[in-house]
């Protein structure tokens, strides 16, 4: 795989950038532009380092509502949401515990124009009441959908148990009551602090030329976002939690893992997650087929600033036999795999990593995530098979992986169980 990173600062070009100057000379703390020769569909992403619950007392959903309010507001012209749609593209806004991601996937010919508009709208937010109202409606629908999704519910319960304090304790989307407690003034204040240019990382992929988007973004940035990474403290003794499910029985486990700074250990956790939790080929899925044929397993290691999180989710069965099967699989990897099994598992894992990096959006997501978490060069898409990430993957040994498993999977995990509600109690109209 060949990547052509566009990192040169084009001084002569910058001199002729009226819009960048119009944006108070501000440009993102970091700009990452990867050119390619695939289909002419570009991903333009802005990442902001900000807690999903705001900078003060936790306000669940404030980041999502603020980000959508900006996209829906007639700030500096046509609302970004409409502009992207009119370009033949799609806009997506996602909030994580410690960051906000705004993604516009558009025909490549529109990438520079959309990058310029997105940066301008977010870093000089001009919110309107209409935009705020539209965003509230949108967030309410998204929250209702999440409440009907057992995966989202499991994650919410697990994170609440695993973390004693900090934004990781909370879901990114609010309940109806929480949404009602997010006043316009708080949204404006959040947007002004979170969506500053110096707190932004801009990522563009899928374009054949980097210079136009770099000009639109006001030049190349190589810095760190202004805000420090949000801290969440893990609970010394995570407790088991039970909840209701509108879908079916489910259970999950969450383990605190290595921080992103411990790259080799984080890579080993990625390998373990793939080996154990791949929905079709993972060892947990294979073992569950014998004891819980209706169960679907999923999971991943979430690479975060500190700590990372290994998430295991089983939907469709929460019997003790299914739990014991999962626990047995987690114990088994604490001993080194035999050389042949390990080699095959690593080939499979490397393929999965590369397979997931095909689309422009997947590539931008990957580069943006690792940058906002503090290790841009460690992103798997950065350099592909020759990059830092896959080089580390190649350096893993059975003994090292088993040692990492013993370090992180022996600790007591957070455990969550969802039990189906009787039909009469199930909320109606949860989804559209």
């Amino acid at each position, binding site marked *: *795989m060949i990547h052509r990173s566009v990192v040169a600062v084009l001084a002569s070009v910058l001199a002729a950038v009226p819009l960048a100057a119009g944006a108070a000379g501000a440009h993102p703390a970091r700009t990452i532009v990867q050119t390619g*020769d695939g289909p002419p*569909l570009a991903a333009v992403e802005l990442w902001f380092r900000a807690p999903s619950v705001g900078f003060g007392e936790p306000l669940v959903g404030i980041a999502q509502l603020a980000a959508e309010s900006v996209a829906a507001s007639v700030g500096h012209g046509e609302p970004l949401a409409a502009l992207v749609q009119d370009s033949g593209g799609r806009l*997506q806004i996602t909030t994580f515990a410690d960051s906000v991601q705004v993604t516009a996937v558009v025909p490549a010919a529109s990438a520079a124009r959309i990058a310029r508009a997105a940066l301008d709208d977010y870093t000089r937010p001009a919110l309107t009441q209409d935009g705020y109202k539209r965003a509230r*409606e949108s967030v309410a629908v998204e929250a209702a959908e999440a409440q009907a999704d057992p995966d989202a519910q499991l994650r919410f319960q697990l994170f609440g148990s695993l973390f004693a304090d900090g934004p990781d304790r909370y879901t990114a989307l609010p309940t109806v009551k929480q949404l009602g407690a997010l006043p316009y003034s708080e949204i404006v204040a959040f947007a002004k602090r979170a969506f500053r240019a110096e707190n932004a990382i801009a990522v563009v992929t899928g374009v054949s030329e980097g210079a136009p988007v770099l000009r639109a973004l006001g030049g190349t940035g190589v810095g760190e976002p202004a805000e420090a990474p949000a801290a969440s403290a893990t609970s010394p003794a995570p407790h088991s939690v039970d909840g209701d499910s509108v879908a079916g029985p489910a259970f999950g486990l969450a383990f605190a893992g290595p921080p992103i700074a411990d790259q080799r250990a984080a890579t080993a956790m990625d390998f373990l997650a793939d080996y154990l939790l791949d929905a079709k080929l993972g060892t947990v899925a294979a073992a569950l087929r014998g004891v819980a044929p209706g169960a679907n397993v999923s999971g991943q290691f979430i690479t975060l600033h500190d700590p990372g999180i290994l998430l295991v989710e089983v939907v469709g069965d929460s019997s003790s036999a299914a739990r014991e099967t999962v626990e047995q699989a987690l114990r088994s990897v604490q001993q080194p795999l035999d050389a042949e099994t390990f080699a095959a598992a690593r080939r499979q894992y490397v393929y999965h990593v590369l397979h997931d990096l*095909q689309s422009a959006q997947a590539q931008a997501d990957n580069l943006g995530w690792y940058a906002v978490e503090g290790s841009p060069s460690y992103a798997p898409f950065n350099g592909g098979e020759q990059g830092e990430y896959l080089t580390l993957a190649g350096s893993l040994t059975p003994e090292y992986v088993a040692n990492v498993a013993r370090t992180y999977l022996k600790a007591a995990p957070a455990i969550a169980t969802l039990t189906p509600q009787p039909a009469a109690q199930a909320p109606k109209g949860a989804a559209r």
Partner: protein
Amino acid sequence: MRTLLRVLAVGFAGLAAMLPAFAAAAPAGVPRVIEVVSTSAPVTGMQLFVPAGLDRQPRNRSGLAAVVAQALVQTPVDGTSLTLAIARAGGSVTYTVDGQETHFYLEATPSRFAEVASLFARALARPDFGPAAVKNAAAFVMQRASEASGDGLSVGAAMFRSIYLAKTNAGLPTWGSAATIAQIAPVDAADFFRENYVARGSIIVGAGAAVPGLSEGERAVAAVLPDRHAAEIVASGQLPVKARSRELVTHRDVPAAWIVLGYDAPAPGSPDFAPVLVLESLIGQAVGRGLAPPLVSTPTDAEMPVGSLYLFDTVPSAVIVYANGAGGDPTLAVRTVATVIDTLVAAPLTQAELALAKAQATGNMLFEEATIADRSWLTGNFAREGAGDDYPARVLPAIAAVTPAQLRSAAKRYFTHYTTSIVLPREGHP
């Protein structure tokens, strides 16, 4: 469903890079090979189209094409199933059964592609159609048939396909039915494979990262396809039914009613193809416009309460507009389409409206080409349908050139008659 309803794509600025690097005129007996490579792709892929679609299976063995494909990917290689052997080598294999072909998609880490293709070629050379293998494959296919019957959009689209593809068996359900799958014997599978997994009429599309292993893999797979024509397409004895305001109704275990409107549509390569793509995009936007938020979510086709899809994986092609009763009044979609068409017929779009419609049609097509699997399918499908190896490079400029008069003419020609498929919940469904 996605495979059934795939919409096309490719692009303007990067068209030069997207043009087939090599489109060999296939000598008799050799599958046609097309390559669409990219220096920035993270994986290498290959799509193999064989003329083993639904249209070559007997009606009383509906599901046979899927059973054969499934048995092939389960064939033991080096002591394990082909699927698992390929996964352990650093790749994947999937298949899709369509009306007029079955296609297999191989993908791998670039440095592992040759080995993955070699494993596939070995299974292709010696597939396992023993009683146990066919029984397992049939059980898998029956499960898929059962799942499909609970998806209102799949059922409605299949009902329409059974009408507009009525001339042959191409409109049979992809996964067959429990009754017909139960009739499939190992000899049926072996015969279907021998007759239809052949070189003539097959197409190989290499895509993604260009590595020496890609050509090596293409050669390995091509070499095991025997040099003969496929079996005859099975004629149904029925006439193709043109959309003429027919109404089909069925009951399934679905939570809410679905309405699927089906329209005749031009196939890829037709001069009307680009105008109808723009129209389909306009209609899709119009029926979706009345929706409440969310502002920014990206639901799948089956999750969308209303939408439209261009079915050009077969010739003849079609457009469907669908509405899910769970999302509101499904008849609203019917009325909206009628309004859009009436408006278009009465007066042409303004230049601004036309530009917007073209942008959305262009975007829709590009989204359908986001992955290497999609891109290779698109190229192979156009080639198979006779539109040309380079058709992906010509579609977007054709959209850009669509005129208001062309839209108006296409609206009159294709969107004034339709077939309605209604999928209702069974009585007593919660």
